[in-house]
């Protein structure tokens, strides 16, 4: 028998190859729907606020990276326990002050335990009760933690994108900030940023979350558009549907109607984010509501909005600043 079937599936089927294909198909890469921000399906835009934020962040990486590398060369990128309450455990053993936390080790807290960890030149994290983490990577270029459940509060002084937390729904990448990140038993993660910016990514979903805002992420879906937590309950419920009910377009569209009705001027931030998530018809509806809440700057038209282009001046008008590290000095986790 020739190898034609093995080569390109033509010719007489080879029974063993067929059987292996069937058996091993369960390990195949699942075609995860690559979800693009709606605007990203348009031709590349030069100089959009979104891309400008990235470029500013990249500039910050260069500048702060140099400073940080100098510090890293003279210090050790090792995690040390800086504070303990109760009986947190590292790889099953009770952890004590000044113990190290090494790559591959799990760290768990029970209902009455907390632990604070510190890395010179990076910052610190405080781990709340009932949490489970694993340290995946710890070097000058990358610090990476998997947070399976529980809550951490992070205060990071490393350059952007050095400190990364994996959760079931997204990667949380620090851009110079302080934040709280909670993973529920269902794998939903909730990020609340107190200083600076955090970049949430999963596949090709992305949310840049500024200080004062929050964002949820879901397993197999990724992060949703960020929001301010003082928005109305109905607004947040509707946003949840728009963000995560990926199978039901009608439910999403109905939820958008509620969301638009509930939106305040401050929620223009969420609405602008949603241009990246909804289809052309709904982008028109977003424009109409935004135009009432935050009148469009000169040059921003409804057609721009429907096309998902030319919204930069509206972003600037929000006045949230850019994803730039160090604007407010070294971040610090609230005690």
């Amino acid at each position, binding site marked *: 028998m020739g190898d034609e079937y*093995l*080569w*390109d599936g033509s010719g007489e089927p080879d029974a063993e190859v067929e059987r292996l294909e069937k058996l*091993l198909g369960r390990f*195949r890469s699942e075609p995860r729907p690559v979800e693009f921000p709606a605007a990203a399906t348009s031709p*590349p*835009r*030069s100089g959009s606020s979104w891309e400008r934020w990235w470029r500013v962040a990249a500039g910050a990486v260069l500048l702060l990276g140099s400073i940080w590398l100098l510090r890293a060369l003279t210090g050790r990128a090792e995690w040390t326990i800086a504070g303990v309450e109760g009986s947190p455990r590292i790889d099953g053993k009770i952890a004590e002050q000044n113990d190290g936390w090494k790559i591959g080790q799990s760290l768990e807290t029970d209902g009455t335990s907390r632990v604070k960890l510190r890395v010179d030149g990076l910052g610190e994290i405080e781990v709340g009760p009932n949490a489970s983490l694993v340290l995946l990577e710890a070097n000058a270029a990358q610090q990476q933690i998997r947070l399976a459940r529980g809550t951490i509060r992070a205060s990071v002084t490393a350059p952007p*994108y050095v400190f990364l937390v994996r959760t079931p729904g997204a990667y949380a990448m620090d851009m110079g900030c302080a934040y709280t990140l909670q993973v529920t038993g269902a794998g939903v993660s909730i990020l609340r940023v107190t200083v600076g910016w955090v970049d949430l990514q999963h596949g090709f979903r992305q949310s840049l979350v500024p200080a004062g805002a929050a964002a949820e992420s879901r397993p197999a879906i990724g992060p949703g558009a960020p929001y301010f937590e003082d928005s109305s309950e109905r607004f947040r419920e509707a946003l949840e549907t728009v963000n995560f009910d990926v199978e039901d377009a009608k439910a999403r569209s109905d939820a958008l109607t509620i969301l638009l009705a509930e939106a305040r001027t401050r929620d223009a931030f969420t609405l602008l984010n949603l241009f990246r998530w909804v289809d052309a018809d709904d982008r028109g509806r977003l424009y109409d509501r935004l135009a009432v809440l935050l009148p469009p700057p000169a040059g921003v038209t409804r057609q721009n909005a429907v096309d998902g282009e030319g919204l930069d001046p509206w972003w600037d008008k929000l006045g949230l600043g850019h994803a730039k590290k160090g604007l407010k000095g070294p971040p610090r986790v609230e005690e």
Partner: protein
Amino acid sequence: MPADHFVGDFSQDAQLVHAARGGDRAAFGELYERYGRMVHGVLLAHVPYAEVADLVQDVFLVALSHLDSLREPTAFAGWLLAIARNRANDFHRRPRAAEEIQDLAGTSDPDEQEARAALAAIQSLPETYRETLSLRLVEGMTGPEIAARTGMTPASVRVNLHRGMKQLREKLGKSANHG
């Protein structure tokens, strides 16, 4: 399907790389769609199945953040493969918590057991054979597709498939005899 069918794909890669460098995330998304399966198959040839999805994300994350350092955009596929293999090596270099090693967990499903044994047998083959067989038997890519995506010559892919399959049959035959 003739291998030449895919000639020209690398120039398309270059266009996508240029666009992605300019901030076009849809272009990078297309690169992800073109190469996600290849990266998955290559990683699966080296690391436990439970780790592969996360590592695929890692590989594309690294690629996205280092796209400007790629000197020759037509070499994107080879560059991406190198990142994938480096990430697989990194995985084996670091100690792992027990919770990460899930592939060793028991199962009572005979098909699942057989599938795991077959995957383990592929992972025990020499690197060149295991990657090619993983792409063919797991990811369902044809030989010409593997050649086009990895940049290997069709002749090399054909040889790897032939020799790798021969070794795989021997391994599976032995394990069946010992079972």
